[in-house]
């Protein structure tokens, strides 16, 4: 949204920019109207009914004035029949006109939100189909914005559309009627409508520029306030309270000045746009009186013209809003379209092949480079037999996590091959991600998993104690509105998830580091009891965890530099020894 503001304020040639945007807006409308054409047509029909009834109501008024009011007061004649007809006309047209509004507004809303739904669904399908690599190169907030706020923005142009079309219909119909009744007044009206319309649109565009400027200042202020309050410790420790206040006051003053500029423009235009139609109306009265004098027009017709003219002023005023929606809408659509027009990347999981029997993982000459080119994994090979429990040890940032993600098929290697055995892979991430749903959902993730398997997983992952303590057990909702779990508990839920999915290969990414050593030992021992069925590869940093593994893979310089038992490695590798000590140091700090 900020970028929209920037564009419209700073663009060098506002006119050509506005024109191309208008063109883009037309394209956008043409495209999204097709999503739900039936709803849109109903909305526009309601709008047309409203427009026709508006003009008709002034004709009804003319009839009442000429046939009822003037008859009674100028000729002092009562005509109960005419009064009844007149009342019926006014009420009938009024109700019909209101009905038109109800139809127009409710179906315009339907069109807008159903279209938003369609667009959001499409964006979601697209986002979900994209591989992890695509997601990692973007901010979560940005993707969410494109699915939500931007989709909503792109359809916001739809809501005022039926109304705007009804204004057009109204202008045409009333001009035609006025011309039919009286050429002179008709011509005046025909000239005046477009002038008023463009005046309103021009004003709206101008005032939007001021508002955008003010909005930008507000953004700056909000950022500065965040920063300043975040840094309150520094502000206090250097005694800079007054300096900071003065700095923020400067920014606030800019916001105030921008807004006062906007008020100056707005107050002038509001007054002018109020006065001009009234002045024209006064002129119409004089002109009309001349026509009445010459006998070309009745008093009722004159009054109904003035009435119609007053009725039209309001729609003419607010049609300007349609034009202020355009930049917002177009910018939203652009961002949505960026996602929709991007080809879906390939799924790296499809490139993982089946390993020979008895082999759980076989990796050959694997390499992987980050986007900026530095190789994290460089010519790595390894082989793990089925049923083994293996520890992967290496310095922070040496590529252990990347290796696990490659093995799970989340990332695509830049070279080499990976094959894993039958029965699938379950990865427990370093940071457990829990969904704001029930505990049960968090374990099954929507897959059909029998209850006893879930229960067993809960036991193995040492979740039993806190799950039983929850009043609603597995049906307890997690997250913001539900129960919040500690880091260790979250990790154990993630672990239970992996175990419940019953895959042949279990990958644990430093999962147990959030647990106390005793719980950790229980979990690992439980996992070992699964041995023979499940192969476990665990990224570990605690000597106690490492010691539980059958074998240790020592990762350095992008490959497996050594392997053996913990004690063997401690004895023969000074680098390994140093690393284990560094881990302990770090732990002490915390």
């Amino acid at each position, binding site marked *: 949204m900020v970028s929209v503001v920037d564009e419209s304020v700073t663009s060098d040639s506002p006119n050509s920019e506005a024109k191309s945007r208008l063109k883009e807006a037309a394209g956008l409308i043409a495209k999204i109207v097709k999503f739900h054409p039936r709803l849109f047509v109903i909305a526009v029909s309601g709008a047309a009914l409203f427009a026709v009834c508006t003009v008709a109501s002034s004709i009804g008024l003319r009839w009442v004035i000429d046939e009822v009011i003037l008859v009674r007061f*100028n000729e002092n004649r009562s005509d109960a029949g005419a009064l009844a007809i007149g009342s019926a006309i006014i009420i009938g047209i009024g109700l019909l006109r209101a009905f038109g509004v109800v139809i127009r507004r409710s179906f315009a809303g339907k069109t807008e939100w159903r279209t938003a739904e369609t667009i959001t669904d499409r964006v979601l399908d697209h986002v979900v189909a994209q591989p992890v690599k695509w997601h990692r190169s973007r901010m979560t907030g940005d993707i*969410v914005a494109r699915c939500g706020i931007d989709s909503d923005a792109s359809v916001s142009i739809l809501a005022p559309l039926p109304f705007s079309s009804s204004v057009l219909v109204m202008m045409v119909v009333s001009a035609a009627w006025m011309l039919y009744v009286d050429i002179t007044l008709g011509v005046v009206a025909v000239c005046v409508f477009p002038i008023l319309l463009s005046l309103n649109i021009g004003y709206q565009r101008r005032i939007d520029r001021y508002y955008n400027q003010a909005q930008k200042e507000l953004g700056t202020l909000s950022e500065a306030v965040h920063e300043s309050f*975040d840094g309150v410790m*520094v502000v*206090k420790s250097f005694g800079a309270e007054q300096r900071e206040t003065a700095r923020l006051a400067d920014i606030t003053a800019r916001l105030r000045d921008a807004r006062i500029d906007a008020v100056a423009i707005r107050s002038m235009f509001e*007054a002018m746009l109020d006065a001009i139609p009234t002045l024209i109306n006064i002129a119409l009265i*004089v002109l009309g009186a001349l026509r009445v004098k010459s006998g070309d027009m009745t008093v009722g017709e004159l009054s109904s013209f003035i009435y119609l003219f007053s009725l039209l002023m309001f729609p003419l005023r607010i049609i300007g809003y349609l034009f202020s929606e355009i930049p917002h809408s177009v910018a939203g659509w652009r961002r949505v379209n960026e996602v929709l027009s991007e080809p879906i990347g390939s799924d790296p999981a499809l490139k993982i092949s089946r390993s020979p029997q008895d082999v759980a993982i076989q990796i050959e000459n694997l390499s992987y480079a980050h986007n900026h080119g530095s190789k994290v994994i460089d010519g790595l090979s390894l082989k793990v037999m089925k049923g083994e429990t293996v520890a992967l040890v290496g310095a922070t940032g040496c590529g252990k996590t990347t290796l696990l993600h490659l093995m799970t098929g989340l990332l695509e290697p830049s070279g080499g091959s990976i094959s894993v055995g039958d029965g699938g892979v379950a990865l427990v991430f370093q940071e457990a991600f829990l969904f704001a*749903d029930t505990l049960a959902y968090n374990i099954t993730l929507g897959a059909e998993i029998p209850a006893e398997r879930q229960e067993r997983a809960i036991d193995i992952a040492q979740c039993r104690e806190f799950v039983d303590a929850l009043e609603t057990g597995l049906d307890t909702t997690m997250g913001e509105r539900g129960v919040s779990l500690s880091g260790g508990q979250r990790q154990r839920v993630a672990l239970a998830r992996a175990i419940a999915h019953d895959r042949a290969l279990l990958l644990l990414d430093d999962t147990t580091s959030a647990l106390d050593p005793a719980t950790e030992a229980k979990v690992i021992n439980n996992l070992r009891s699964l041995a023979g069925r499940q192969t476990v590869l665990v990224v570990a940093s605690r000597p106690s965890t490492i010691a539980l593994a059958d074998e240790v893979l020592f990762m350095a310089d992008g490959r497996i530099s050594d392997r053996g038992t913990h004690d063997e490695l401690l004895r023969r590798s000074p680098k390994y020894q140093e690393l284990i000590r560094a881990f302990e140091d770090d732990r002490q700090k915390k």
Partner: protein
Amino acid sequence: MNEPVGRFTTAKTINRGFGVAPALSKGIGVTFVLAVVGSLARVVIPVTIQQTIDKGLRPGDVRIGFIVQMAIVAAVCVMVASVALRQAVFRLGVGAENGLYTMRVKLFEHIHRLSLADHNDERRGALVSRVTSDIETLTMFFSWGALVWLLDGSLMVVVACVMLSYDWILALVAFAVSAPLYFVLRNLQRRLVAAYDIARENNAELLGSISELVAGTETLRAYQAHAPMLRKSKQAVRKRADAQIRAGVIGAFLFPSGEVFAVFTIVAIVCVGIFRGVDSGLTAGSMVGFVFLTYRFLEPIAEFTEVVDQTQTAVAGLRRVLGVLDTPIGPPQASNPLALPNRDLKIELKDVSFSYSSRLDTQDDDLPVLRQINLEIPAHQHVALVGESGSGKTTLARLIARLADPTIGSVSLGGVNLKRVANDELRRRLVVVPQEPFLFAESIAHNLKFAAPHAEREELENVISKLELTDWIRSLPDGLETQVGQRGASLSAGERQLVALARAALTNPDILILDEATSAVDAIAEVRLAKALQALSLGRTTISIAHRLSTAARADRVIVLEHGLVKEDGTHEGLIAKGGEYAKIYAQWLSATSSQK
């Protein structure tokens, strides 16, 4: 201040608001008069029509001269009214902007002076929204709601007066028939607000669901579990659309209800008028005028009903703003400050106790964080505070820095009670380097100058070279002008600490309080930090909140805290020899870092 602002009535809240920002109410009377004059333009057409029909267009007697004269008078009225309207809108807007400016600046100042207890993470967001979104609700109110009260209010009064002057019976008929509209609108309005609340909730749910789908994408992919989650998100999308559509339908009924009432009111007026006839003194012109006036009269009602809610929101915002201004500020400033001695600032704590729940509104009075602390730290000593988290070491350092005042007891510096020391002087003589140093999204030079705004370039470079950081600064793309990014994000954690140390050195303080960082830094940064720290602490009193025992081992004196009490106090060697708590922790650390299990 005796009474919490939360219990103020609306009128009292608004009054307090005017007190805080007098510009809001200054000259409001004149503005109102201008608005009344401005709304006269709206009745010009009905009156002109009435006059034209009654006096200018009598059957068989059309008096163009009269009509032209009247048109000229009407046009002049419109122009005068429009100038008045312009002035009214402008005055209201400028007054509001000036008033809200004052309010914001008062808030900034006040919030910066609030104690750190009011600046915890949970409250920070709230404080930010006080100065941003809460004041914005007031801005919104002044640019629309207040305008509606002012302009439409005066319009209704003027229209009602004109109606009554034409014919009081017809006027009463008009009021009576249209009165229920207010209740219909209020009712629909309430439903609409409720419907939009639901839509907003559904929207939040939708965004929450999409965020999960996106943020959890790796987990979902690892378990091929996208489909159910995607289905859930799409359900949320549908639910939100349904709620929006429902709200839209209510709005669709609300919007034309004014028209419907206008139609019935007009018919009632016409029928009553016709029934009463010429003899009642009614004229054809005033009948037509009534029809026009009815629309003018009903127009503002719809807006009023909307504005009622907006006004409530604005008052609630104002109430929250005043609530912050009523929160007492942190350590109050010394009224009659005493000067600190020029050198050798001894730190002394006498019978110091502290608890965070000194605030009146908190119910739970938990245990004091510090209890009966008596300490003396001579000038130039290097002290390490050691203890588990929650032992009170951070609080102790804060009391010495006067980021908070002790609940009981006193802290003095060079023999002067901290409460009597001017804040400016204290901040020159004592500097705190927090655990996670905060940097502004500016250049390194700018961040250094935060400590000393008038420092010359040369001084910056001197400090840099004293701390042996010249090499590091040279290695950066733009040297001292390198931008550090949001909260210093373009620098590593270690580099941020380097900037914080240089910043502290620039004030050349007598006392340095260091909250040691816990986050890991790479080896090169570690070496640089150690060197810079050594250079910085040379010749100063240094109090380190030690998270690493290696730091404690290097200090002149180790103070071990436990549950808010000083458990042990002595040199590293002395405490080891004593074989107490410190010796135990140290032994644990040693064994854990050796390679043997």
